């Protein structure tokens, strides 16, 4: 998975049936220090993430798993909203 920040959304009335009623978020991949890294990606969402929130998202075929048994044609899905993020620091 990768970290990201929700930076917007898109909407489409004409789309593949499998995408009906799916939120389509624009997610900017970020590094653990929350700086942008890479291209903005369109993600489906199963968490209700709002704009500006730090999330993590999954890529590839697994992106459709949260919507099973439905067949949602997506290759990127937000699967979690980050509450806290710790990098480095003491301990193992």
């Amino acid at each position: 998975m990768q970290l990201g920040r929700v930076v917007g959304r898109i909407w489409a009335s004409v789309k593949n049936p499998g995408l009906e009623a799916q939120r389509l978020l624009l997610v900017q991949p970020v590094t653990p220090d929350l700086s942008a890294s890479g291209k903005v990606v369109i993600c489906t969402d199963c968490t209700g993430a709002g704009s500006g929130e730090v999330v993590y998202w999954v890529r590839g075929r697994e992106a459709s798993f949260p919507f099973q048994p439905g067949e949602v044609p997506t290759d990127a899905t937000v699967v979690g909203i980050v509450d806290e993020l710790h990098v480095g620091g003491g301990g193992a």
Partner: protein
Amino acid sequence: MTLGRVVGTIVATRKDARLEGHTLLIVKPVTPDGKEEAGYLIAVDTVGAGNRELVFTVGGSSARMASGCKDKPVDCVIVGIVDGVSMDAAR
């Protein structure tokens, strides 16, 4: 999924039989604020996208989950025509 603009079409008479009857479009990836990105995609169209329309594509093996593409040799499918893009001001 990737945002893109339809910039052309492909006609192929000699192709895998399972691609019969599918429209093949050339898509140029673009950023949410409309700037063109590198590269081009050949995508199967499942929504009737027209030339210059803003669309979004799904790639990889998830592309075969788009309706009509179940057992087809495709890894890029246009799954929606974009009506609007809204970006947060704070970006």
